[in-house]
């Protein structure tokens, strides 16, 4: 998500060598019977193995949702763990059908790399965590002037940090490390007062500190890191299926359709719910998309709605306990908004 270095440039240079797949991705996927999904090799809350070795996380659940839409079965998906350097090549070369790997949506990736981002499944951004014992009374990043800040070198995080302090005319002492493990250890040992990285990461790191209660994640977000799934350019049908799977997850939450009540909701009198769940007579919403008309029912049965997915993997139902924040629905002051399904 942040190593924008050589790997990406290399992939960009050779991106054109990968021609679009001949047949449509939907036909390919149906023929092989499963979706190949590129995920992170291990990131708490997004793609991480549980005790049985099953993948858990928002990113992998999204792929399960697409599988449910296409096959009516959320288990018809295979995961390919990809490193930051491999991820774009894997999508371009057709090794994976969806890249759902906490990847930041940027114009360069949409254009030069030949990807199509379908939406933002998680609005992330760079944040700050402070040791409240060492910095009592600090409740805003604007009070951090003169602080020692732990940061990983060679990342956009480091550049954003410099920009932010310069723009606000504040001083800081960067404490720079090559590896994330080193940054964690240094911060836990008290070599710096402030830790900065993506906010979703800060919550995971806090769990590994020796005194997590002493550490506070500050509210400021100083960069935009919209993370979302991407597909190859040049296959509009597949792009639409993946994109509308995302919107269906949001729409289900907005209408109060959950994994538990989806079967009752099918009998609802609310025309909008009936339409979304494919219960209207002569509906063609699903078939026009290239899937069955009960696709939303299948999605919600497999992974729940967006809110359930969020709470289960990163929210209150997980050890990370990340607040919905800007990832709340637009009706609740967040940014998650789906165009109407009709």
């Amino acid at each position, binding site marked *: 998500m942040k190593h924008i270095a050589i790997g990406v440039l290399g992939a960009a240079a050779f991106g054109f060598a990968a021609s679009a797949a001949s047949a449509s991705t939907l036909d390919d996927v149906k023929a092989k019977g499963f979706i190949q999904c590129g995920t992170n090799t291990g990131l708490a809350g997004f793609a991480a*193995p549980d005790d*049985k*070795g099953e993948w858990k996380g928002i990113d992998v659940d999204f792929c399960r949702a697409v599988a449910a839409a296409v096959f009516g079965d959320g288990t018809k998906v295979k995961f390919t763990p990809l490193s930051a350097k491999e991820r774009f090549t894997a999508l371009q070369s057709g090794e994976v059908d969806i890249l759902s790997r906490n990847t930041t949506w940027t114009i360069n990736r949409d254009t030069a790399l030949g990807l199509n981002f379908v939406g933002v499944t998680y609005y992330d951004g760079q944040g700050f965590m402070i040791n409240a014992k060492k910095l009592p009374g600090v409740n805003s990043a604007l009070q951090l002037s003169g602080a020692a800040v732990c940061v990983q070198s060679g990342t956009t995080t480091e550049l954003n940090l410099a920009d932010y302090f310069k723009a606000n005319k504040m001083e800081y002492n960067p404490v720079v490390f090559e590896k994330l493990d080193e940054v964690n250890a240094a911060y836990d040992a008290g070599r710096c007062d402030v830790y900065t990285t993506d906010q979703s990461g800060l919550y995971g790191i806090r769990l*590994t500190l020796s005194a*997590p*209660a002493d550490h506070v994640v500050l509210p400021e977000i100083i960069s935009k890191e919209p993370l979302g799934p991407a597909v190859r350019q040049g296959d509009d049908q597949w792009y639409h299926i993946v994109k509308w799977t995302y919107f269906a997850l949001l729409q289900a939450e907005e209408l109060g359709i959950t994994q538990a009540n989806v079967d009752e909701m099918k009998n609802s009198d609310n025309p909008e719910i009936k339409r979304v769940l494919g219960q209207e007579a002569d509906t063609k919403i699903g078939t026009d998309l290239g899937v069955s008309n009960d696709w939303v029912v299948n999605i919600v049965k497999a992974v729940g709605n967006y809110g359930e997915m969020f709470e289960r993997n990163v929210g209150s139902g997980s*050890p*990370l306990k990340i607040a919905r924040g800007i990832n709340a629905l637009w009706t609740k002051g967040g940014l998650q908004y789906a165009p109407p399904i009709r």
Partner: protein
Amino acid sequence: MQEHDMSWVRTEMALAQAAPSSERGLGAWVRKNLIASTGDTILTIIGIVLVAMILPQIVNWAFINAQWTGPDRTVCATVAQGGIQPDGWTGACWAFVNAKFGQFMFGRYPLEERWRPILVAILFVALLVPLLIPRVPRKGLNAILLFFALPVVAFVLLLGGMFGLPYVETPLWGGLLVTLSLSFVGIAVSLPVGIVLALGRRSNMPIVKLLCVIFIETVRGIPLITVLFFASVMLPLFLPAGVSFDKFLRALIGVSLFAAAYMAEVVRGGLQAIPKGQYEGADSLGLSYWQKMGLVVMPQALKLVIPGIVNTFIGMFKDTSLVIVISMFDLLGIVKQNFSDASWATPQTARSGLVFAAFIFWLFCFGMSRYSMYTERRLDTGHKR
């Protein structure tokens, strides 16, 4: 007058007397090894102090305070960290290793199919142990079974897709299974290929020699990590869309070729240590090239380079961890991957996992090292020093 013959020949050995008490027992050993001089005494004291400072903490952490079982992170976290341990507690989180043990051994190999790698492991041990013990007869048959029959059986069992066994694709493999299968294939391929390359490099035939030199020098000149990376990032772009070349196979080929190139140079070192007279002696007996090499030169050369060969094996065993750059998860890779499981994230998790991985690696490497020393001693006829 009778003359007595005073000459006397002792017909039996005098009984050996016990060494003086100052040279015997614990006291003597301590005097000789620990406090022989002032310098030794000082070093001994420093050593004892260091051990006394470090050892209790290690024992405390690894055994006394350690948590052996538990459902999730709470058993390995203090109250302040959201767990159940008293504040200030530090101890190994073996519960994490316990919960993830299956994954550390087999990766994501399906639970109901795990009897297959276990069966392969049992067969492997059953064939390897008799081969390693010199007294057990039928070495030839044993070696054929281990190096030719077992790989076929293991291939069928592990991969499946035939004889009614469900197909288990290699991306699901992981953990010790990957580490061991990569190392076994690497070792089994690299020794014969390395010997052939070494002979080729010393051959009188110019083309053979040139090819061997080019291969060895090219492979030795590129880091393994580069080849693996190239194979995973660049290769897919050159292949037609949809054609994917199994990552595990890529790693197998890469690791085997690398080990072979290194092995070739180790064997060549042994060949150069054999005096010219041995070659000429074999020639004068009218032996063919292969007889000369197989009966005279190689047995001597290989014996000389046992430490180098085992060194290469151990190096390769540990190098298998590099497959993490192509997102394959060997033992170390799968241990690190499981650090991302938020339900086990504690300050102790990473330490415990890494110590466990280190211990498993050490077990195998130490075993190889001890066996090579044993073999060296056994074959060390006529060169005792």
